[in-house]
């Protein structure tokens, strides 16, 4: 697949991934992504028509447990790991623009 690997592509996927990329890093990532996508190109050499992805039934586990109520971890223990929490809530900057 001929994919134009350029600044715009890196910016687009960085935005999809929610990762801020510095301009110095962008050049490096551009080069690496180009190299890795060229390596991924070997996928094209194999025909897989008619094949399906592995089925969920092949997963060995016993699947779902009973939907019974169990104690959760205490909220205070969880909030203690937050970079900024107050009164049992996580604190973040304004979510709405201009809020």
């Amino acid at each position, binding site marked *: 697949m001929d994919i134009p690997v350029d600044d715009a592509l890196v910016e687009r*996927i960085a935005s999809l991934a929610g990762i801020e990329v510095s301009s110095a*890093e962008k050049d490096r990532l551009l080069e690496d*992504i180009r*190299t890795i996508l060229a390596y*991924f190109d070997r*996928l094209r050499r194999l025909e897989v028509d008619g094949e399906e992805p592995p089925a969920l039934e092949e997963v060995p*586990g016993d699947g779902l*447990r009973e939907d019974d109520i169990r104690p959760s971890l205490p909220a205070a223990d969880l909030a203690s790991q*937050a970079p900024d929490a107050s009164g049992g809530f996580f604190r973040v900057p304004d979510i709405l623009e201009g809020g």
Partner: protein
Amino acid sequence: MDPIGWTAERIREGTATGDIDPVEVVERTLERIRSRNPRINAFLYTDEAGALRAAERVQERVRRGGPPGWLLGVPVAVKDNQCTAGTPTTAGSAMLDGYRPPYAAHVVERIQEEGGIIVGKTNLDEFGMGSSCEHSAFGPVRHPQDPERTPGGSSGGSAAAVADGMACLATGSDTGGSIRLPASLCGIVGLKPTYGRVSRHGLVAYASSMDQIGPLARGVRDAALMMNALAGRDPRDATSSSRPVPDYRADLERGVRGLRLGLMEESMGEGLDAEVERAVRGAAEALRDQGAEVVPCSLPHTAYAATAYYVTAMAEASSNLARYDGVRYGFRAPASSAAALVAGSRGRGFGLEVKRRVLLGAFVLSAGYADAYYRKAARIRTLVRRDFERAFATGLDALIGPTCPHRAIRLGERVDDPVRMYLEDVHTVSANLAGLPAVSVPAGKAGDGLPAGVQILGGPFEEGTILRIGRAVEKARGGARLLDGET
């Protein structure tokens, strides 16, 4: 007494009879870590007080005549992507620097219940993403035999700790080879169990359809002993199997007479270091000498496995790592809006290799590209699995081949060339794609003393069989690995 280098079996038995004092074992182990770790950087955190308290609890348990436990009194290192309640768990990432989980991983609970003594947390490639332990935010791990070389990754801290006597046993995690690869390069035993055999509850997730936790040990018997403790159903991991857990040591000494083994042809060709090839062929010969039949075996889609693996793993990583948002735990970058907070925290908290994988993962899942990459890789995964099913359907009991294409590489040799680094995993990823158990066992040393491993793959839940074959390889080479300088 100097318990450094003793087997877990010996420590367990001696502790149970009262002949060995677990506090002394732990003190000596901590001393070893203090003297050796500054050079090797295998441990990110050592819990001296916690380990001594645990040893005292083992003393008390023995005094009361409590149950012996599979790991009674044994010093164990835990890979730092497995949660320990109240003590740091970084996954090798600046994103989790300072994080102290409020709960413990299932495997950590199991080690403690079985009387094991956790001495510390081991270094790794960030979030398990790497094959050389150079992608840790806390500095690389160095090979115990040559500080200019890498121990392999991503469980390189665990492998180096065990190989150097800083722990008797260690846990690793293996998504594409991260237990087997460093085991091979450090000259020890590393087992990736069947997908579903060990619960991942409390494992920092990387690629959930392949992640699996397993043991690293200096000998096959000790790896089997640790599997007895780790394996089993845990309702907190929906993929964990309720199949009964056998005593994995039960059949280890039965030998290999009558077993039919396939030598994986596609893995023995181009790109394989001559010393590694000699080690693998030597192991095959030793198995033949002990009565196994060794026949060539073809897995035609091997050449596509690594690519399918990386596409799949990156896609799953981009989804799993979405949880690091700078809000609920971990690193937060200062920001004036919520969106900038998330992107800024991720931009500064993740290292370069993690960014590569998360960005490419987002790409291979994105509209217009998911069919060509992610879904195609999933279909190739089916073909890789079918290759194994066919091989086992012809009556093969296990497959053998190399673990790593070469021996330990130099620090910096590949770290700037991501695709070359990815190819470190070329022989190990198939077992993860297919969910099969595989073990790396030391199979040889070249003139420079650097070890090479043989990889043994089995059918689903055939850990006992591959460990038994590994034990035969080990015996042919004179038994379990001793620490340098020991006889």
